[in-house]
């Protein structure tokens, strides 16, 4: 199947194995080998990649802030391309986002703020 990287992959929605939104494809990692066409190895997810696309300095600032969320944060979150398949209207990723650093901010907000609001 022909996939156009920018139109069909970059900035597309990821849905995880539990049918939850797992973010957008914020970046694509290509592998370059001599004499061979470039290969897509990973997609990147998360605010660090996204902010670096907008502005590198801003991205570095976001990375420092993001690092406070714990292990696996403060740097781009990479998902091997082999774990992603096209499932219209989104991309399906065969992992559970809640068990990865992708949801670290969501989990922190849930724990630190939402759970303290009565009847939430």
């Amino acid at each position, binding site marked *: 199947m022909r996939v156009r990287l*920018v*139109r069909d992959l*970059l*900035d*597309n*929605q*990821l849905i995880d194995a539990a049918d*939850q*939104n*797992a*973010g*957008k494809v*914020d970046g694509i990692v290509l592998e370059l080998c001599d004499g061979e066409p470039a290969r897509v190895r990973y997609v990147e997810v998360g605010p660090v990649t*996204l902010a670096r*696309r*907008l502005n590198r300095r801003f991205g570095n600032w976001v990375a420092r802030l993001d690092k406070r969320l714990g292990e696996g944060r403060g740097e781009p979150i990479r998902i091997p391309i082999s774990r992603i398949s096209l499932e*219209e*209207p989104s991309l399906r990723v065969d992992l559970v986002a809640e068990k990865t650093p992708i949801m670290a*901010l*969501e989990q922190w*907000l*849930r724990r630190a*703020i*939402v*759970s303290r*609001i009565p*009847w*939430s």
Partner: protein
Amino acid sequence: MKRWLGVALGIVTSIGGFLEIGSITTAAQAGAEYRYQLTWTIVLGTACIGLLIEMAGRFAAVSKHTIADAMRERFGIHFFMVPLLLIFFISLLVLAAEIGGVAVAIEFLTGVHFPVWAIPVALLAWGLLWYGTFSMIENGISALGLITIVFVIVGVRLGPDWHALAARLLPSLPDKEPAHYWFIAVSILGASVSPYLFYFYSSGAIEEKWDETHIAPNRMVAAVGMGFGGFLSVAVLVVAALVFAPRGIKVEEYKQLPLLLSIPWGRAGFLLFAGSLFITCIGATAEITLALAYEIAQGFGWNWGEDLEPSDDARFSLTYTVILLASSLLVLTGIDPLKMTTLSMALTSASLPVAILPFLVLMNDRKYLGEHTNGWLGNLAIVVITVLASVVAIVAIPLEIMGGS
């Protein structure tokens, strides 16, 4: 059968949810100063929002994407940030105007100056969003908004000159103060064609899991619901033309607004006006807040949904919490809600091409809509209206500010 019950409900909510501080204020100003002459702008704005709402519903039903989600996907993050930020900041002003509207309604009822009510109103709206469901907000509050039919009853009982009114359905040039005339014209367009409305609508369609069988009912809701909604705006203009214009009353401060109904109907009219303002503005507050949070959550791929528990979409829920707080702080400063309303409506008009034209590109993309892409007439109508509204607004806003009104 269930689908057609949904159509009836959709029409009721569109009618009940149409009026808010922007449409009430701008229609009242138009009627007070130019009698029926600006009726055509309401007709034009209503036609435009009707077309856009139909497109937003069709887009969600066919593509299963919300507009913000598809905009990021189709145009990439750099381009997406432009409409996102522009709509976000202008809608924050509109939201502040709506919160101000609720606060002013409470001031009318209690006599306590409106800024005091900014935080309690934000808390009330937050409680509705945090603990309520999408259908409660969309159907419940909007159905209560049917109270605004009182403007039609008062308008008809005051006996307008129907021929003179019909003659103003077509555009005409002003006899006096042209800059002010065009400023009010674009404010009316901004009040009718609010980008948050179709972001909200497409998100609602996804929340309610629309598919292609919803295309026909959606068309009917958009046409009939928005059509009757626009009719309510015309009714406000007619009442202002018959109550304010003969007495030489210009709407220059918000405290004059209840006179619209209290002059013809006394104390009952005053209470009906305060009730209408309260209900319509709290409904619009909830809708704008949700629309902005939807736009951000969908643009960044988070979990979102008014029907989810806040613990299941913490980023989304806390985003609308912060949005409400930020807008209520603007009201707390005591900025005149009337000035905030007219300015935010005119700014909305100026920003329309940035908010709408990318959406129009999506509506013509077969990847999303297959055989259901737009026809040329709909495209042309939207391009002409939005570009003209924007150009006139960009010229009229500085002139109005320099004119000191």
